[in-house]
């Protein structure tokens, strides 16, 4: 559909939040938690963090929480009975202040969760979530969205995108039906858009490499030593995967207490050695370099190939979160430069 351009003042945005609350929607926005900016529930604009580049963790947990119950079961002599699967009522959520890269992350996730199997739990959650992104006026050395087909004002994945103008008002782009629904809760709060050049309010994120080229090249590097070289310092923790807005790997766990139990889905990471460990003790990805290769291959080769979408949005969270500075952008640049 055609993007509608509107504008909304700070005051109106505050009102909109109240309206949404009154409408029974929970609002999640970046808030300051000690020395981190994370997503959290807010009831007023004042609770929202000021001038942040990105939240520490991505917004993915709105539709793909770090763990979630899939169903309950009961084991008795007469067999196993399964209950409350797929009938959980998810709340209506509004994600306010997500960055375009985060919003775009849901594109990657959705591609995975609706690929061969339609994951209702994920899609139900996402359908109940409205994404109001705020375009980036600032970036840091870790940002590289522009190298992976992204953009500080990228509207892909957002339902509404706000761009802050010098007046303090926001340029509001209404992108999807969901966006319109939100706007229609209080149309009076939305004024007509001033004639402004959106670009001029956006951060300049230099393009470091071309994702397309990487995708083409990386396959030929499967046996290359670059993976060992790059991952020598890698600890094999899951920090990168868990803060990543596009990482979708999960583990299924049953937790039983006597006859009752629940089945859970929990985040998992291809960086863990346990991820591919066989019962026999054999591990097809025996060392960290192979796991690191898998991570990049998956994001830049397998996903584009099979799902026609990149597994990376260039937010740079993994690099920020990494305890040993595994800077993904830097690594991708080497890859783009290495001779196959």
């Amino acid at each position: 559909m055609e993007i509608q351009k509107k504008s909304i003042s700070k005051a109106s945005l505050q009102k909109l939040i109240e309206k949404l609350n009154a409408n029974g929607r929970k609002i999640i926005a970046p808030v300051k938690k000690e020395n981190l900016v994370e997503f959290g529930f807010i009831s007023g604009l004042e609770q929202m963090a000021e001038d942040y580049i990105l939240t520490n963790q991505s917004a993915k947990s709105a539709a793909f929480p770090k763990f979630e119950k899939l169903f309950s079961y009961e084991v008795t002599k007469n067999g196993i009975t399964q209950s409350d699967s797929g009938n959980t009522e998810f709340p209506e959520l509004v994600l306010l202040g997500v960055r375009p890269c985060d919003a775009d992350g849901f594109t990657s996730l959705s591609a995975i969760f609706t690929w061969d199997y339609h994951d209702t739990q994920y899609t139900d959650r996402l359908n109940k979530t409205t994404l109001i992104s705020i375009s980036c006026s600032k970036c840091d050395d870790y940002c590289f969205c522009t190298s992976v087909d992204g953009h500080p004002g990228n509207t892909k994945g957002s339902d509404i995108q706000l761009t802050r103008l010098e007046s303090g008002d926001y340029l509001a782009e209404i992108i999807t039906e969901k966006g319109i629904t939100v706007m229609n809760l209080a149309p009076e709060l939305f004024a007509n858009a001033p004639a402004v050049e959106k670009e001029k309010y956006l951060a300049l994120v230099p393009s470091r490499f071309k994702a397309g080229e990487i995708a083409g090249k990386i396959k030929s590097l499967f046996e290359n030593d670059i993976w060992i070289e790059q991952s020598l310092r890698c600890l094999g923790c899951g920090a990168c995967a868990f803060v990543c807005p596009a990482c979708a790997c999960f583990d299924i766990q049953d937790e039983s207490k006597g006859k009752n139990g629940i089945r859970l889905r929990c985040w998992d990471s291809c960086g863990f050695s346990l991820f591919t460990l066989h019962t026999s003790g054999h591990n097809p990805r025996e060392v960290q370099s192979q796991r690191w290769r898998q991570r990049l291959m998956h994001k830049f080769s397998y996903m584009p190939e099979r799902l026609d979408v990149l597994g990376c949005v260039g937010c740079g969270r993994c690099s920020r979160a990494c305890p040993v500075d595994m800077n993904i952008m830097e690594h991708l640049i080497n890859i783009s430069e290495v001779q196959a």
Partner: protein
Amino acid sequence: MARIGVFICHCGENISATVDCHKVAGVTAELPGVVHSVDYKYMCSDPGQTMIKEAIKEKNLTGVVVAACSPRMHEPTFRKACSEAGLNPYLCEMSNLREHCSWVHPKEEVTTEKAIDLVRTLVEKVKKNTPLLPIRVPVTKTALVIGGGVAGIQASLDIANTGHKVIMVEREPSIGGHMSQLSETFPTLDCSQCILTPRMVEVAQHSNITLYSYSEIEAVEGFIGNFKVKIRKKAKCVDEKLCTGCGLCTTKCPQKKILSEFEQGLGFRPAIYVPFPQAVPNKPVIDKPNCTYFQKGKCKVCEIVCPTKAIRFDQQDEIIEVEIGAIVMATGFNILKTDFFPEYGYGKYKDVIDGLQFERLASASGPTLGEIKRPSDGKVPEKVVFIACAGSRDPAKGLEYCSKICCMYTAKHAMLYKHKVHHGTPYVFYMDIRAGGKMYEEFVRRAIEEDHAQYIRGRVSRIYEKNGKLIVKGADTLMNARPVEIEADMVVLATAGVANEGAEELAQKFHISYDAYKFFAEAHPKLRPVETNTAGIFLAGACQAPKDIPDSVAMASGAASKVAALFSNDELTREPLIAEVNRCAPPLFSTCTGCFLCQSVCPYNAIEREQINDRNGNLIKELSKINPGLCQGCGTCVALCKSKSIDIFGYTNSQVHTEVMALLNEY
């Protein structure tokens, strides 16, 4: 899929009086995996056991839970019953409904509920049980006896007489130990050597006993039934095969003024010597540090005089390796020397001697040929003061424990003295008289009443010399601490019995534990007095604590019977409830990382280091290995292991975890 049978016992009315056994059986029947659940009046009775056996066959059960009395009572009974019915005994568990439930709670709903919880817990556990086979360890039927004193001799003879080989190692040139130094023995006053030397000879001649005298233990490895021991046979510089023991060398040796160990320094011996006339073996050794040839490079008198040319100055220590099934430690004890006692002159008064020295003075074969003469000037002492508890029972300056034998030998000394010096007076300072033992009390009374030993209850505070006399200052605590002063000609200290030299090092070599006083520690103070915590190593005699001859001999026979029992089978079989380190496919081989933090927790030194090498013998990984012959199954290593790489049969991680879950959750 598990097929569990549950058998609830009423134990007459012991359980059913407060627990609704029928209900328990009913509820249990509903548990997943339970295919058979009944209650009955007496499960341990023949019909009861038959019920179980039949159920096992008919319902082909994979596990059995008997809910009855304490497993400490009837677990063996029911496990046996199961195996008779073809079910591995370790697939049978007991739930304690009597001691832990019906007997301690009133008849009410919750008591039955508790019973149900207890049964459910064991049902869930038994689902995790696995069939286990008893452990079999081959046994080398040769015993090693270390120490050739009376205990070692007794143990060796007893073992040898059961038809098993014995290797005896004695570090001195002759066996015999302290007993061979004694004059007469209490309470019978028969001559020590007269009763001991025949036994010594028997050892030397016994076809099942190999004696290595003048030898020490170099190294020990292995475990019960399978020890490998290195013995260092010290160079005697005499060819034992050629030597006839004629003794010519010892008489001709120019070096004659060496203090004799056997005579406790009261007599002399040459540099080539046999410790005493009845020595076994009766062949001399050259005491290199004191031999003129070895020190100055010339002499060789012995070589010249030896009729059989048996002297070998160039003889080297020999290392002998033997395979051993069981070991008896009989390394004996020693006594504190007089120089231990400042108040008695640090041993600088020649006429203040210790008990063993008095034994030599009183011995017919001793330096004075049995006449009591005081060391300083050879005068016959008119007044002799015997001081009991010299160093014993003295937390302040000496040792806390009672040396056990001093009361008796002091009384004996007083008697012997009186018998030899009729006009003399023996005084005995004592704290208490401990004469526990057959004919012991009577013996002490004889010393006091017939031989008029003057017993004074009290400690001696000081001894000093004054014109040729030893002034003994003490107090008589029975005469409300009246000061006593005796002008004695000689003082005999009943010095405390202590662990033998090198006991600690030896214990460490053998991985056996020892107490604060370096005496070897028995496995259990009451129930396993002759065993050590290291399987296959036993204790005999005073190496465990000071004790008299009959006790030492009894203990030696006890140890011998333990060895004989161990040797009665070609294999020793043990309960398989022991720990094991897991193994898995390469490249991991085991989740054990070889940190070996578990090694020091094992009370039995059962944890060894195993190396995993590739085809070319390059080390891939080091990991812990638990020796099934040594592990006793305490599981301390299991709880310690961080990577959960050790588990223990019968109480596996998954079993105990399941028990906790089952006890607290609904099923």
